[in-house]
């Protein structure tokens, strides 16, 4: 039970961390690109939206698996 909870914490925590790092890099590049070439800002936003969908796909699946472990594999958490 304890190990399962640690596993779930790691899955959610590292998923969030990975997404956060990815988005921080993406956001930084968007600001940089918009400052360098303002006329390209709308195009960069569209591309960022596309990449954002790909970026968080894998961490989200990890989060889903964490919820599966928490509620199906190890049910009946102590109150």
């Amino acid at each position, binding site marked *: 039970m304890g190990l399962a909870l640690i596993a779930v914490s790691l899955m*959610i925590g590292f998923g*969030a961390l990975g*997404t956060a790092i990815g*988005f921080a890099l*993406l*956001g930084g590049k*968007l*600001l940089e690109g*918009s*400052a360098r070439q*303002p*006329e390209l*800002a*709308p*195009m960069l*936003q*569209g*591309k*960022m*939206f*596309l990449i*954002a*969908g*790909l970026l*968080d*796909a894998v961490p*989200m*699946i990890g*989060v*889903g*698996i964490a*919820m*599966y472990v*928490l*509620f*199906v594999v190890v049910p009946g958490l102590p109150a």
Partner: protein
Amino acid sequence: MTATQRQQKTALATVKPPLLKIYGLQCIVLLVASGFTYSINGVVAKSLLIGGLISVLPNAYFARQVFKYAGAAYAREVNQSFYRAEAGKFIATVGLFAATFAMVRPLSAVAVFSAYLVGMLLNTLLVAVLRNPGAR
């Protein structure tokens, strides 16, 4: 309408993909797949529907938040709305998965994850194919 608002509206029209079309198409694909599977196995059909909805609903929220602002003059706001949208999407996904696995019985976990994965891929594909020519 001020010049800045007009500029903002033009930038949004240039960059915003047809969100209603993208998420409407996803819902149609989901309903068709679920309806087709229902005649074979009701539990799998229900699981497919739930998995697909877990993918579509947070993504729709994300897209709605992201395209509130556009243009170089609003780069800071665009960035902030991206961060807010991502946090909301993450929380919504965690909540929906938790609610599904805690409350829905019987459930096919493989069908839920398959539908979720296909939903994510379909979302990326539709955004890439249907996005505004001005945003390419």
